């Protein structure tokens, strides 16, 4: 009786450990398997890039995405700091786009649940443009944007 209970607990433990590692590896594989796609980063119009990245589906304007540190006027387009945070739950991906750059997509960040929704980076901006942030959360896309006036462009970013 006792022995079988021990066996039972052992079996239970191994199953749960197995389950956890499985969940971990599934998560890792989704993050690792998304390759860097040249076409996503290619030069083209902002609308084309948006369509390629997010399809024709709805993008919801959201006030739950906060942009900070981004200046209203950037004297040097080569270094434009930005911090993005959000109170949205289950965030999978944050994309940063600069509307007027020759290749609009600047960066995509795939976050695991171990990270808070908070990313800082420094962008290059060719000229005055909207900086558009798209947050993917539970399969839906949320957007916020802000205009940055650029005095000196960032070497043809």
């Amino acid at each position, binding site marked *: 009786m006792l022995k079988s209970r021990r066996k039972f607990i052992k079996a239970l433990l191994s199953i749960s450990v197995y389950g956890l590692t499985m969940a971990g590896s599934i998560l890792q594989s989704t993050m690792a398997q998304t390759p860097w*796609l040249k076409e996503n980063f290619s030069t083209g119009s902002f609308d084309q890039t948006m369509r390629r990245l997010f399809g024709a589906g709805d993008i919801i304007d959201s006030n739950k995405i906060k942009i900070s540190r981004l200046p209203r006027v950037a004297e040097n387009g*080569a270094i434009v700091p930005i911090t993005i945070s959000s109170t949205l739950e289950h965030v999978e991906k944050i994309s940063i786009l600069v509307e007027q750059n020759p290749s609009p997509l*600047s960066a995509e960040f*795939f*976050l695991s649940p171990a990270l808070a929704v908070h990313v800082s*980076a*420094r962008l*290059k901006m060719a000229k005055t443009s909207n900086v558009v942030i798209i947050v993917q959360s539970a399969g839906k896309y949320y957007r916020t944007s802000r205009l940055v006036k650029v005095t000196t462009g960032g070497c043809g970013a």
Partner: protein
Amino acid sequence: MSSIKIRTKRRDGHTQIRLLITHPMANGRGKDKLGKAIPAKHITLLSITHNDLQILTAHLSASISKNPYFDFLLKEGNQGDTISISWTDNLGKTDSATYIIK
């Protein structure tokens, strides 16, 4: 010497991870002093693990500034935990660094 500098800091119960990478992030549109085109050379892939568990993958373009800086907030994170960073650029060059949270 590694091209990656990593620092961490406790912030509101989270661990802030800051990184600075030495890389030209050239977009291929620039020219040198002699008017010769500078070929594109920029990081495409950035990856961070926390105790061997992947916590971030980023796809980057050349419109990230030269010598890129990033920061992220790890929800947990204890003294002695390992943070590893690695990057790959469009020419296939890679580098990585490991940091132990102090």
